[in-house]
């Protein structure tokens, strides 16, 4: 039971941290709960399908199917987060102004929301499929259903609780810095996911490592610990990264920062001079 709880906790934690950042980043957007909930639901269905076809995926592309699948899922998520980050840098100011003046939810950005729904779904799919395979194995080797259910419940509750803790922590960031902060978190998240994709491609020998272990900071923070694992998800921390991972990380971070700079909305002086405008003027997204 403890083993079940621990594995489920670690997998749920990874997805929950990603979902928390997405939830914070879509603060003030109407129907986001529906989109995030929908993403989780689709992700669970996806996890069952991926687990069901795990054998087929593993055999595909000369035995590199699993790595290629994971890398593709990660890179698709990177692209979608990237699109949202760039979109936010041109719409974030508007969003904050609306929240300050009207206080209600913004109806804009449903295309961006759909992308983030997909990011949530992909996160749940990746972590969830491992949980499904693990539980299948446990059940097949005769672990009692009762103990397993309790283990799953504890693991899910623990992981979700950590996600909520991060979410409510993020909400404490003052509104004028809020989307700048969530946008940067999304940049680091995307860069980390890209680095993870590179790791899979190196593992499958589809890409050279360009330095297998550039450094070893595991004595300082090990990826096997919970903090190390959380940092791995949030900022892509890897105690022993390969050169290729660094290249992917730096390339995605640089691309997104450039994208944000290029599309950043300039303060529109004099178009609608209201009291709220002057305060919104100072808000910089990216």
């Amino acid at each position, binding site marked *: 039971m403890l083993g079940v709880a621990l594995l489920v906790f670690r997998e749920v934690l990874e997805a929950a941290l990603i979902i928390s950042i997405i939830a914070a980043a879509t603060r003030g957007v109407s129907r986001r709960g529906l989109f995030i909930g929908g993403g989780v639901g689709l992700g669970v269905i996806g996890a069952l399908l991926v687990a069901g076809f795990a054998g087929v995926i593993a055999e595909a592309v000369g*035995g590199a199917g699993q790595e290629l699948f994971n890398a593709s899922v990660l890179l698709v998520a990177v692209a979608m987060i990237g699109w949202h980050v760039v979109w936010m840098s041109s719409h974030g100011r508007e969003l904050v102004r609306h929240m300050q003046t009207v206080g209600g939810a913004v109806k804009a950005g449903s295309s961006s929301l759909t992308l983030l729904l997909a990011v949530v779904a992909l996160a749940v799919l990746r972590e969830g499929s*491992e949980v499904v395979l693990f539980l299948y194995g446990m059940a097949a080797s005769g672990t009692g259903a009762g103990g397993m259910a309790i283990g799953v419940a504890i693991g899910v509750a623990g992981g979700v609780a950590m996600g909520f803790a991060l979410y409510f922590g993020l909400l404490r960031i003052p509104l004028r810095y809020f989307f700048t902060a969530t946008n940067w978190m999304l940049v680091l998240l995307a860069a980390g996911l890209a680095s993870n994709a590179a790791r899979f491609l190196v*593992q499958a020998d589809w890409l050279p490592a360009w330095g297998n272990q550039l450094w070893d900071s595991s004595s300082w923070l090990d990826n096997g610990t919970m903090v190390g694992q959380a940092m791995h998800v949030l900022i892509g921390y*890897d105690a022993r990264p390969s050169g290729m991972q660094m290249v992917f990380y730096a390339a995605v971070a640089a691309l997104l920062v450039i994208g944000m700079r290029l599309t950043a909305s300039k303060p529109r002086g004099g178009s609608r001079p209201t009291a709220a405008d002057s305060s919104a003027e100072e808000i910089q997204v990216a």
Partner: protein
Amino acid sequence: MKRFWLAAMLGLVAAGTAQAADLPVYKLVIKNHAFQPAQLVAPADTKFKLEVVNQDATPSEFESTEFNREKIVMPGSTTTVFVGPLGKGSYKFFDDFHRDTGNGVLVVQ
């Protein structure tokens, strides 16, 4: 520009797979949720191909945070993981789905 990157990527992939044929191969068997051998010896500064055979009827996940690899091994199947080159030392690996019994160490010398 796009075509250049595509060509560059394909070049890298070709380079990667071309060498793969000449790499030394090592084998690990998972049986009764444990690794055989539990201690695997490999040469230092050499990239190698690790074949993991799962003889159990349940899935396993071959994983190492110390040499940074992670792959699910389906029941009754063999999977390949490319490892290294690694410096001298010992690197733990484990079966993430059977943490209590599935533990081993890769000794690089």
